[in-house]
């Protein structure tokens, strides 16, 4: 979008098919990825809580399993239904892309379906409805089955995405990539770096989510003068579990992010130079902490930034002296290598025959990168603070602590969102990025402008964009509404009603006739 609008300068910009398709993919995917990390992280945490209950028989862990499990289910449903859109929108809106990469890209998607989605959905159903139908052991196994399947699903879809960032395991036949090694695709070094980073991101989200809600519950109880009873202990325990999980995740995120960053400097130097708004090659290069002025100016002259000397050389190459190439030099290198103009193909619409802008949208990459790290750091601080201020069963009484705890929930979500916006926008103008320093296969790339469905009209695309965005908007309100209700209701709203003669604690309602759980 950036190169488009800039290229057209002051002219009235016609919103064309490509723009609508990109907005649609961006909105639906970012939205889907609000649900996904919470599902993945929370599913594993819930399975862990249930394991603790299974091992100890302590009712405290059953309450935690039931409560966090309920919130997970509210969220899971949304992740599932928005995931269907993901499976189909490649063919619908990006048919040229699907044709070009289908030989490679479809395989991990099919594997994700067969290996992960079936397990997720079937065992989640068993888990939700099976409390009194299955033995405790089998029921617990179901929890692990669906939660580990969500992790497997992340692996396969990241394999597909990593191939777009760094194509490997293919050879070009008649101008199209043909899969030559699925093993190479599934062990792509980009994937091996992105997978832990993403999974830590999921746990950061889930940990902070548990921390925020549980802290709010404790704060509210304390302010209402409720007793320090068992329920408070369970909330307090949940909060500490969430905070530890979040804290460990942020350490993992920093380490995996550093590895991923160094890899990206090799594989997509222009993305990383744009992330730093590094206009001119520097040796040694300094890291920009903050910038003011217009970072989008290609000459960069108006950009003033606060920098840390030598730091970027370290982030890129692991030492304090190596040169880091700037945007200007890289643009020239890309143009020399991949051409200066788009082919004169009418299917490219307004871009046909135009000059290719290799520089991604600088404000988006620069600020996306900083917001990712910034929001991540804020939520790490929140976790650290929570652990300190709540040590030994304490909880501060101040008026702001509750709202603060709730607000902290948003930070890892935002970090995830900005991270993905950065990584996808930073790949532009490519949908499949080439490798200037090929550890992948050189010569495999596709411009985003070539990828969109040429047979779909802008009107159709706009219709689906508006419809999906509206439905997604409404459903987000509904989901948050339900989560707030369950959070308010606490354990009362999720624990089974005790019937007179049932003391098994299995969650069953005692009578053989009545279902323990029903929609």
């Amino acid at each position, binding site marked *: 979008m950036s190169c488009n609008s800039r290229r057209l300068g002051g002219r009235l910009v016609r919103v064309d098919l490509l723009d609508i398709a990109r907005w649609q993919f961006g909105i639906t995917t970012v939205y889907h990825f609000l649900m996904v990390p919470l599902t993945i992280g929370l599913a594993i945490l819930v399975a862990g809580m249930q394991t603790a209950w299974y091992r100890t028989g302590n009712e405290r862990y059953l309450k935690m399993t039931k409560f966090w499990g309920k919130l997970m289910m509210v969220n899971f449903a949304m992740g599932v239904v928005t995931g269907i859109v993901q499976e189909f929108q490649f063919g619908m809106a990006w*048919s040229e892309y699907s044709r070009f990469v289908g030989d490679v890209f479809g395989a991990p998607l099919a594997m994700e379906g067969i290996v992960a989605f079936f397990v997720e*959905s079937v065992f989640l159903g068993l888990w939700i409805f099976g409390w009194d139908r299955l033995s405790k052991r089998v029921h617990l196994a179901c929890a692990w089955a669906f939660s580990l399947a969500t992790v497997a699903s992340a692996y396969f879809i990241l394999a597909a995405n990593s191939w777009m960032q760094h194509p490997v395991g293919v050879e070009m036949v008649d101008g199209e990539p043909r899969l030559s090694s*699925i093993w190479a695709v599934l062990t792509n070094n980009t994937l091996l770096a992105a997978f832990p980073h993403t999974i830590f991101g999921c746990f950061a989200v889930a940990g902070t989510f548990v921390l925020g809600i549980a802290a709010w519950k404790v704060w509210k109880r304390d302010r209402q003068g409720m007793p320090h009873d068992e329920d408070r202990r369970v909330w307090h325990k949940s909060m500490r579990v969430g905070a530890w999980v979040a804290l460990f995740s942020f350490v993992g995120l920093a380490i995996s992010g550093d590895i991923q960053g160094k890899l990206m400097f090799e594989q997509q130097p222009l993305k990383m130079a744009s992330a730093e708004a590094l206009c001119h090659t520097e040796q040694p290069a300094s890291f920009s902490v903050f910038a003011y002025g217009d970072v989008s100016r290609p000459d960069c002259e108006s950009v003033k930034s606060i920098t840390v000397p030598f730091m970027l050389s370290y982030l890129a190459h692991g030492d304090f002296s190596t040169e880091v190439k700037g945007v200007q030099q890289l643009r020239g290198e890309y143009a020399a290598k991949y051409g200066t103009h788009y082919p004169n193909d009418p299917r490219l619409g307004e871009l046909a025959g135009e000059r290719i802008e290799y520089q991604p949208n600088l404000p988006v990459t620069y600020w996306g990168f900083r917001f990712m790290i910034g929001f991540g750091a804020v939520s790490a601080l929140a976790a650290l603070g929570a652990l300190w201020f709540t040590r030994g069963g304490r909880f501060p009484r101040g008026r702001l602590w509750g709202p603060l705890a709730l607000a902290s929930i948003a930070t890892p979500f935002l970090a995830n969102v900005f991270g993905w916006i950065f990584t996808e926008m930073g790949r532009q103008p490519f949908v499949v990025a080439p490798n200037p320093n090929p550890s992948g296969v050189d010569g495999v790339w596709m411009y985003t402008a070539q990828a969109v469905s040429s047979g779909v009209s802008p009107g159709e695309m706009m219709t689906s964009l508006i419809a999906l965005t509206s439905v997604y908007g409404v459903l987000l309100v509904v989901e948050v509404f339900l989560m707030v209700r369950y959070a308010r209701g606490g354990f009362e709203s999720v624990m089974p009603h005790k019937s007179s003669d049932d003391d098994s604690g299995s969650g069953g309602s005692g009578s053989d006739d009545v279902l323990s759980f029903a929609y």
Partner: protein
Amino acid sequence: MDLPTVWFCIIALLWLGYLFLEGFDFGVGMLLPVLGRRETERRVLINTIGPVWDGNEVWLIVAGGAMFASFPGWYAGLLSTAYLPFTVLLLVLIGRGVAFEYRGKVDTDRWRRAWDTVIVLASWVAPLMVGLVLSATVFGLPLDANGDRVGGPLVILTLPNVLGAVAVAAFSLLHGAAFLALKTQGDVRERAHRFALRFGIPLLLPVVGLLLVAQLREGAPWTWIPLLIALLTGLAALARQAVGRDGQAFVLQGVALAGVVVTLFGALWPNVLPSTLDPAWSLSIAETASSPYTLTVVTWVAAFGTPAVLVYQGWTYWVFRKRIGTKHIPPVHAA
């Protein structure tokens, strides 16, 4: 059989699995206000599919993913050409999935009525869209040499395609009634049973119409065999329903559906998406298939994955095999 043909058969199988499993899901949703007169009865209906509908829907996702992996040109051509029907399908599947999960989470009539509306509407619209796009892939679309649509977004609404849409919806309705007769007890079962018998023949008519149009326009001599099997087992299913053998009726309906799917995909072969403008522009199995290496990879995945899926998905149905009646429904337990 070469690998592309094997995968053509696997795709047909995935669609069969989807139509069979989510067919009755849709039917249950369609029949919600018809057979569920009181709130508890509506909950009986919903809970017959509660633990399984999500797993059933994955068959659609995997059918899509498998088409992408094995026939990218088919996946890209069909989905982009039938853009609006797929958009509608996605929207109603989103609403429907959320509705099942959220309906019981707030204890007010207004809340439940709102989600019931979503369930019923979505359960009617979704099979219509599935039928529309499946018929379109059999009867063809106006494609140019690149596999892109010529003409507006609504060129898909031809008479045979609309017949296919109605046929899938009608089958789902009947299949849902048979499923409910098998899975419920008491009044709901009685009503489901009566519904299947009273409307069985009229509901089979559009399916028969679709089969005959497909056979006469695109069929091969051998596809008369699955067509006749579909007809006979469809009628046999109704006969077994009449004598109260719910299980047999349900299984026979599945066999009839298999006959329908084999007839349709048999009529489609060796194409995957014909062009109605010029046969030379039709997308064929050979042209759209992925490379032998890719097909080999996904074959291994399917060879190990699919039996496992069938086993544990079958196990779910075993775990939740009991009939459900109003006496099994617990009090509302909402937030």
